[in-house]
């Protein structure tokens, strides 16, 4: 419960409250001289109070019948201010178990909690969310997957900008720096439809930190060192709010990470070094009824591709698999061939004009540019060609996006958003054919409604997208244009119900369409990493997906149980299937995979039980499983994640009023994937794997900042294992023991 006590006239102020991360539960009530009340559902991490009267106020967070956090504010007429409630004391001190475990926000990852994972790719960081796993194509290439959905079925947003690099297929991760975000959210139901009509697997949104009015400078330095590959990561995040320019907030963040050859329990992997850098800048300016937010970011990486995974033909591949011999190597940071170089650039503008205290118009525009270069293991035979050092594959993707929306809080319980948008995408290529030149032009309109009262909250979104796609191809010396158009109606309904203070039920129903991606339709060529000839299918129709996603949480004293279940039926599920006849080439025979469609049923379940012990130790056990069936022939599509069982034990080692140190033991058991249809893969699934990890994490509170430090070990016992969803399992084991040291130093300077 949050209370704001205010007094006086001219009540046009706006107070945005950033809530302590992960804490949700009790409804929020605003008390003012007008006895204005609002309630909060859905686990938002911020809440905005409008029409606040000038004067001194106190904001307090109530939990379990007591104030756990409070903040004094002073608001003037027409002010818009943002305040952050400090973290509740029980992050540093044992929770009084009489208040019990809180209902948790289960669809977000916070960088603050994620410090131990900060050197990992985005997909690995997201794995802690219910239903999430990752599809990997190398030690540094990972795609997030939600109950098996990935790529263009799981849409990524960088704040308000939709990321589009996934159009290029499976063998690369999202082109984004996870350190950009302070929070990564998995969005479902009506809210997901509002963001993307074709996100049949959901939407992931990366959000930057909010500017906090009481801070002049906030500087965060994060460093990490990992022994495997001798990986260093240095990151800095600077936020500044000049006192002389009221309403202005600036942010600059950057990171640099590099590693040498990575190791498995049996040896170092040749050519697996990588470098990665990212810079993001942002500016937010609020004055009167206006708010303007600008962001610009770049991200670049060069990743060595394991030499042993690049094979000439099927014979080579089978030799690699069955001989099981790693190319010998020694440690080096040099990145040779084959490798891929990725550059990503994203700019976005968000302008808001407040028409009235309860209504505002928002304009969002963005540009994105992605460049991808792939250098094959071979250099050209011709010396003059070789001297040019051109990539074998060179892709460019440019996106322009725009959206206009009208947000209205009609009453205390009803809010609507009406939006229209356009999105123009251009793809070109040089070098070897992979994805043809094309343009895609999207238009959409959406209407969204949020209603919340007492113990219920309902969100509804209807949306329609229109896609006009033109593919340009060379045919016998002339350019041929292939045009396709798709109409994509979609609808989402979400219902949140808190039957008691200790329970939460959420249901999300969606129906949506996803048009086939360009690579699903037009890919045509050899895949060196798998020695497979991949054929697209120009006749694909769009997928029509119906989903029911439910979440349930209940707490009882020191116990908390949560379950997330998903049922989905997709008409025209697009998948890649092996063909009976191999293709004969001058390089020998290659197996062929072709993109097909079938109706499919998908189901996923994640359950978790948390138990808080008296001495503030805790134990958490969870289970996750996915089942998929192609109903046309009863087979299972490839790369469906195996079942997983996880246990996390956390035990406090040392706790005072300012220092808190705990130890965490993490055990993950991944079962063998038994549900693999015949002839869908070139190698049977690997055996089950039991992997352990440990870390010691410390927090030292100094004034209003908390320094974090720690060390940990992944794959503690140096277990040799392979994962079904890692395509590198054909060639080598998963990475060996990795000991990590990390440090986070925040420097906060507050207004006097």
């Amino acid at each position, binding site marked *: 419960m949050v209370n704001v006590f205010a007094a006086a006239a001219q009540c046009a102020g706006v107070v945005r409250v950033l809530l302590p991360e992960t804490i949700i539960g009790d409804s929020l009530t605003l008390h003012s001289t007008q006895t204005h009340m609002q309630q909060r559902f859905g686990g938002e991490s911020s809440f905005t109070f409008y029409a606040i009267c000038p004067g001194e106020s106190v904001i307090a967070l109530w939990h379990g019948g007591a104030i756990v956090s409070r903040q004094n504010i002073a608001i003037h007429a027409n002010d818009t201010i943002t305040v952050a409630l400090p973290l509740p004391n029980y992050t540093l001190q044992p929770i009084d178990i009489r208040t019990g475990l809180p209902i948790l926000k289960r669809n977000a990852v916070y960088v603050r909690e994620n410090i131990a994972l900060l050197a990992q790719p985005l997909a690995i960081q997201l794995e802690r969310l219910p239903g999430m796993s990752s599809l990997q194509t190398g030690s540094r290439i990972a795609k997030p997957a939600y109950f098996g959905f990935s790529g263009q079925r799981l849409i990524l947003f960088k704040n308000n900008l939709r990321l589009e690099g996934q159009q290029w297929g499976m063998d690369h991760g999202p082109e984004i720096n996870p350190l950009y975000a302070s929070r990564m959210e998995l969005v479902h139901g009506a809210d997901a439809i509002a963001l993307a009509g074709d996100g049949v697997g959901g939407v992931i949104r990366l959000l930057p930190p909010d500017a906090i009015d009481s801070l002049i400078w906030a500087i965060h330095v994060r460093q990490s060192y990992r022994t495997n590959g001798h990986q260093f990561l240095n990151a800095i995040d600077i936020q500044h709010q*000049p006192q002389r*320019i009221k309403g*202005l907030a*600036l942010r600059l963040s950057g990171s640099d990470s590099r590693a040498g050859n990575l190791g498995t329990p049996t040896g170092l992997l040749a050519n697996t070094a990588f470098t990665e850098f990212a810079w993001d*800048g942002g*500016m937010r*300016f609020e004055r009167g009824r206006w708010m303007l937010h*600008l962001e*610009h970011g*770049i991200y670049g990486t060069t990743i060595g591709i394991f030499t042993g995974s*690049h*094979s*000439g*033909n099927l*014979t*080579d591949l089978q030799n690699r698999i069955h001989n099981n011999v790693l190319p010998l190597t020694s440690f080096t940071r040099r990145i040779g061939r084959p490798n891929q170089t990725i*550059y990503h*650039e994203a*700019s976005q503008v968000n302008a808001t004009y407040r028409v009235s205290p309860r209504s505002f118009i928002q304009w969002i525009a963005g*540009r994105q*540019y992605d*460049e991808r270069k792939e250098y*094959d*293991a*071979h250099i*050209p*035979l*011709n010396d003059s*060609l070789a001297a040019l050092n*051109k990539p*074998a594959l060179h892709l460019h*993707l*440019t996106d322009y996006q725009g959206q206009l929306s009208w947000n209205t809080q009609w009453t205390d319980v009803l809010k609507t958003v009406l939006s229209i948008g356009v999105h123009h995408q*251009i*793809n*070109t*290529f*040089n*070098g*070897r054919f992979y994805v*043809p*030149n*094309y*343009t895609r032009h999207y238009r959409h309109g959406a209407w969204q409604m949020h209603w919340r009262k007492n113990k219920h909250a309902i969100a509804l979104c209807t949306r329609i997208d229109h896609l006009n796609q033109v593919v*340009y*191809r*060379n045919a016998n010396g002339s*350019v041929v244009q292939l045009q396709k158009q798709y109409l994509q109606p979609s609808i989402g309904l979400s219902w949140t119900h808190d039957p008691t203070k200790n329970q939460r039920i959420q249901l999300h129903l969606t129906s949506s369409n996803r048009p086939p991606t360009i690579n699903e339709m037009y890919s*045509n*060529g*050899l895949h060196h990493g798998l020695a497979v*000839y991949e*054929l697209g299918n120009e006749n694909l129709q769009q997928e029509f997906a119906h989903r029911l996603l439910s979440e349930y949480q209940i707490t009882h004293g020191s116990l908390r149980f949560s379950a997330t279940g998903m049922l989905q039926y997709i008409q025209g599920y697009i998948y890649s299937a092996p063909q009976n006849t191999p*293709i*004969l*080439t*001058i*390089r*020998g*025979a290659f197996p062929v995979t072709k993109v097909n469609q079938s109706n499919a049923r998908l189901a996923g379940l994640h359950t978790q039980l948390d138990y808080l012990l008296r001495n503030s130790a805790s134990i958490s056990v969870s289970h996750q499983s996915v089942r998929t069936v192609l109903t046309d022939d009863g087979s299972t599509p490839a790369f469906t994640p195996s079942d997983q069982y996880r246990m996390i034990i956390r035990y406090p080692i040392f706790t005072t009023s300012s220092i808190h140190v705990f130890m965490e033991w993490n055990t993950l058991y991944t079962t063998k994937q038994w549900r693999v249809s015949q002839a869908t893969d070139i190698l049977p699934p690997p055996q089950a794997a039991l992997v352990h990890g440990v870390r010691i994490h410390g927090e030292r509170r100094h004034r209003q900042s908390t320094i974090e430090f720690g060390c940990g070990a992944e794959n503690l016992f140096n277990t040799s294992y392979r994962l079904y969803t890692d395509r590198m399992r054909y060639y080598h084991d998963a990475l060996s023991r990795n000991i990590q040291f990390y440090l986070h130093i925040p420097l906060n300077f507050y207004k006097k």
Partner: protein
Amino acid sequence: MLISTLALAIFLTACKKDENEVATPAIEQNEEELITSLEVHLYRLDGTGDTAVFAFRDIDGPGGADPQPIDTIHLANETGYGCFLKLWNESVNPAEDKTIEILNESDEHLFCFSPNSADLSIVRTDSDGIFEIGLQSAWTTGAASQGELAIVLKHQPGIKNGSCDPGETDIEVSFPVHIE
């Protein structure tokens, strides 16, 4: 204000652009450097008869149209032959001779010959200075028989040791062989 102006300037000017024209797509290539055809040139070591040419041709490279039917190599029994191989890119006009490029990088390439069922022995007769190459070879037939001959070009940059084990396969073609 200076900072915000600077930030805005960076925002507006720092964009990288795609210089390609979307409506003029690049010529689609299956490989950056295509080899479409392998020719086996055989002549009798006793000097009788003409040179015979047997070929594998896939003019548009992997995918697309099927390769032309592979020629069957007809050989006389108990006879010695000289052989040289020619590689072509026939997807362009005029066709490019790729043999010389293999020869220029002979220290990275090795042709391997694997007869199966046919009574045939093959010895490479050329060298990169240390190891054999296989662009030229001497063939000796035995009794009348039928089988296959796999000709494999291995790419062995920095790892060539005279054996066919290391490296990746650049070419692998199996010719039917009739020894009559």
